[in-house]
C-alpha cells in the first residue's frame, strides 16, 4: 500500500506538462541514438548530460531515464532493417530480425520487438518498485565497511563479467580510480597528483571522462569504419507491425522468460543488457520445440532478447536508486548526474527525496507507453533519421561534446582534458579495452576511498573490520569470486574441450 501511494505521488510529479515533454524528448532522442550505429547509450547520455544541468534534478533525471529506455527500443530498428545493431544489446536481434526482414516480415519483427520491449520495460519497473523499498530498508543498516565492500564488489564484478579481456578490464578499473584521485584530498586537504597544474586542483570531472571516453572516443573510432546504411524496407504500415494470433502465441513465453532474465541480469553489476540478451536467446533456443529455426527468422529469437534488454533497464535502476551503486557505464553516468544535481545517492534518497525517486520511476512507466506508441507508428520516420550522413552527425557530436563539457564549469582546461580522454577512449576501443570499468571507477573511486578511510578510522587502523562484519565479508568474497570467475571458466572450458577430444 505504501508503495502504491508513493507511486501515485510519483505520477503526480512526472505528469506535469514540462516533465512529460522532457520524458518525450528523452524517448525520441534515445530511440534515435539507439538506432544510430556508432553512438551507444553511454555516449548519448554523456553528450546530452550537460544540457540537463540547468534543470531541476527530477526533470533532468526524467529526461535521462527516457533516453536510457529509448536507446533500448531504438537499437532494434537498424538490427532488423540493415543487420547492424544500433548498440551492443541489439546484436542478438540481428540474427532473426534481419532474416525476418529478408522474408518480408520486417514489420512483424519490429512490432513484436516494440511490444515485447513495452511489456518487459513495464514489468521491470514493477519489479524495481517492489524490490526497492525492501532493499532500502536492508541497506539502511550498512556502515562504511559494508559500503566499501559493496562498491569494491561492484568494481570487481564489472571487471570480471565484462566481455573481453579481464586483465584489460582490471587495468581499466585501476586507471579509473587513478583518474579520480587528482585534486585536494578530502581528509587531509593536501593536493595530490596535480603535477603543478592548477586546473587539476579541483579534480577531474566525471562528465569530462564520460564524454571523452564514450563521445569523442567513439567518433574517432567511427572515422575508420565506413557505415553505409542500406535499408531493406523503408515504408512499413501499422497493419504490418501488429502480430497475428500465432505470432502472439509463439512470443508470450519468450517475452516472459526474457523479462525475468533481463531484470535479474540487469540487477547484477557489470552484466547489463548485452549479457541478458545473449542469455535469453540461448534459453529460448534450448526450450524451443524447433531450435533449428533460430537464426532463420524465428520470431522468438526477436521477442526474447528484446524483452531481456528492456527489462535490464529496470534491473539496473535497482542498485542505482537503492544503494547508489551503478552497474554499468550508462548507470554510472546517471549516478554522476545525481551527484552533480546535489543529491546523495543511496538508500537515504528514498527517504529524503521521495518525490525525485518516485517521479523517475513513474516517468519510466510513462516513457514505456510513449516508446511503444512511437516505435509502432513512427518507424519510417526513424528510418529517415538514421539516414543522416555520418559527415553531419559525427562532427556535431564533437561540437556538442565540446560545448557541453565547457558549459559545466566554464573552463577551457576541461576541454583539453576532454581531448585527452577522447584519445584515450579511441585507443581503448582499438585495444578492446572496456570503457565502462574506467567510468565506473571514476564515479565510485572517491566513494570507495571515503568508505575505506572512514572504516579504518572506526577500527583504529585494523583491516579486520572488513572480515568480521558478515555483510562486508560476504560482499568481498563475492567480489573475489567475480574476478576469479573467468579463470575458473577457462579451466572448465579447457577440461571440457579435452574431454570432448578424448571422446
Amino acid at each position, binding site marked *: 500500500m505504501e508503495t502504491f501511494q508513493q507511486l501515485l505521488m510519483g505520477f503526480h510529479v512526472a505528469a506535469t506538462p514540462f516533465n512529460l515533454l522532457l520524458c518525450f524528448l528523452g524517448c525520441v532522442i534515445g530511440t534515435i541514438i539507439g538506432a544510430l550505429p556508432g553512438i551507444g547509450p553511454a555516449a548519448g547520455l554523456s553528450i546530452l548530460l550537460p544540457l540537463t544541468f540547468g534543470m531541476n534534478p527530477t526533470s533532468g533525471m526524467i529526461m535521462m531515464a527516457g533516453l536510457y529506455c529509448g536507446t533500448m527500443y531504438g537499437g532494434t530498428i537498424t538490427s532488423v532493417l540493415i543487420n547492424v545493431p544500433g548498440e551492443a544489446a541489439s546484436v542478438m536481434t540481428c540474427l532473426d530480425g534481419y532474416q525476418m526482414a529478408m522474408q518480408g516480415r520486417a514489420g512483424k519483427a519490429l512490432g513484436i520487438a516494440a511490444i515485447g520491449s513495452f511489456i518487459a520495460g513495464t514489468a521491470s519497473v514493477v519489479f524495481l518498485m517492489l524490490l526497492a523499498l525492501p532493499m532500502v530498508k536492508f541497506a539502511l543498516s550498512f556502515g562504511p565497511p559494508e559500503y566499501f565492500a559493496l562498491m569494491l564488489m561492484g568494481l570487481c564484478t564489472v571487471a570480471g563479467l565484462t566481455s573481453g579481456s579481464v586483465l584489460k578490464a582490471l587495468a581499466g578499473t585501476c586507471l579509473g580510480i587513478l583518474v579520480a584521485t587528482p585534486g585536494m584530498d578530502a581528509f587531509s586537504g593536501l593536493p595530490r597528483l596535480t603535477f603543478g597544474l592548477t586546473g587539476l586542483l579541483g579534480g577531474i570531472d566525471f562528465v569530462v571522462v564520460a564524454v571523452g571516453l564514450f563521445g569523442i572516443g567513439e567518433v574517432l573510432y567511427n572515422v575508420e569504419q565506413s557505415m553505409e546504411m542500406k535499408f531493406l524496407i523503408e515504408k512499413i504500415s501499422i497493419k504490418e507491425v501488429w502480430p497475428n494470433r500465432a505470432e502472439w502465441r509463439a512470443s508470450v513465453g519468450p517475452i516472459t522468460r526474457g523479462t525475468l532474465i533481463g531484470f535479474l541480469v540487469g540487477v547484477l553489476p557489470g552484466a547489463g543488457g548485452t549479457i541478458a540478451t545473449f542469455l535469453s536467446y540461448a534459453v529460448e533456443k534450448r526450450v524451443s520445440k524447433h531450435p533449428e529455426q533460430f537464426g532463420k527468422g524465428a520470431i522468438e529469437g526477436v521477442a526474447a532478447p528484446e524483452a531481456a534488454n528492456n527489462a535490464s533497464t529496470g534491473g539496473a535502476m535497482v542498485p542505482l536508486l537503492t544503494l547508489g551503486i551503478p552497474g554499468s557505464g550508462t548507470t554510472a553516468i546517471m549516478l554522476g548526474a545525481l551527484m552533480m544535481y546535489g543529491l546523495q545517492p543511496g538508500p537515504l534518497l528514498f527517504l529524503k527525496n521521495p518525490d525525485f525517486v518516485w517521479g523517475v520511476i513513474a516517468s519510466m512507466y510513462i516513457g514505456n507507453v510513449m516508446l511503444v506508441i512511437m516505435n509502432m507508428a513512427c518507424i519510417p520516420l526513424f528510418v529517415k533519421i538514421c539516414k543522416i550522413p555520418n559527415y*553531419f552527425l559525427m562532427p556535431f557530436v564533437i*561540437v556538442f561534446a565540446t560545448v557541453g563539457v565547457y558549459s559545466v564549469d566554464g573552463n577551457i582546461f576541461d576541454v583539453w582534458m576532454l581531448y585527452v580522454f577522447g584519445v584515450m577512449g579511441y585507443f581503448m576501443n582499438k585495444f578492446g579495452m572496456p570503457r565502462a570499468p574506467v567510468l565506473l571507477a571514476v564515479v565510485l573511486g572517491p566513494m570507495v576511498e571515503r568508505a*575505506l578511510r572512514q572504516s579504518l578510522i572506526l577500527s583504529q587502523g585494523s583491516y579486520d573490520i572488513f572480515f568480521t562484519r558478515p555483510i562486508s565479508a560476504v560482499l568481498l568474497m563475492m567480489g573475489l569470486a567475480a574476478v576469479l570467475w573467468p579463470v575458473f571458466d577457462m579451466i572448465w572450458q579447457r577440461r571440457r574441450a579435452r574431454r570432448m577430444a578424448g571422446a
Partner: protein
Amino acid sequence: MKRAEQILGIVLLLFAIYIGYESTQIDTGGTIGSVGAGFIPFWMSVSLGIISVAMLVQSITLPSDRFAPTFFSEKTARMQVLWVLAGYLVAVAVMKPLGMLISLAIVMATTMPAFGARSWKVIAFTAIATPVIVYIVFGHWLKVDLPMGILENVLSIY
C-alpha cells in the same frame, strides 16, 4: 597488433611506475586509524603495474595468430584519424585566443571531410552555421559564458 599490445603493456607499466613514484612523494603511510592521501594512488599504481606486466607477458607469449593482423585496417584510415585529431587539437589550442565559435568552425571544417563530405559548399555552410546555432542556443538561451576571443567586441552574449 601483437606489437601494439606489447607497447600498450609497456606504456601502462611506465605510467604505473611514474604514478607510484609521485604517490610516494605525497603521504603513503597509514597512521593509526587512517591512511594518507597517497595511499589509494600508490596501491592502485602497484595493482596497475602488476596487471600491465601480466598483459605484457601475455602479449609476448601468445602466438601472433591470436591477435588481429594490423592495428589500423588501412593506411587511409590512420591518416583520417590523425587528421581529425590534428584538427581538433588546433581547435582546442585556439579556443582561448580566437574564441569558441571560430574553434568550432575549425572542428566542423576539418572533421566533415574525414567522414566523407566532399562538397566544399556543404562543408563551408555547415562550418559557418554550426557556430551560429551554438551561439544562439548556448550563448543566448542557456546563458553559457562562451569564450568569444577576437569576436568579444563584435558579438555579445548578454
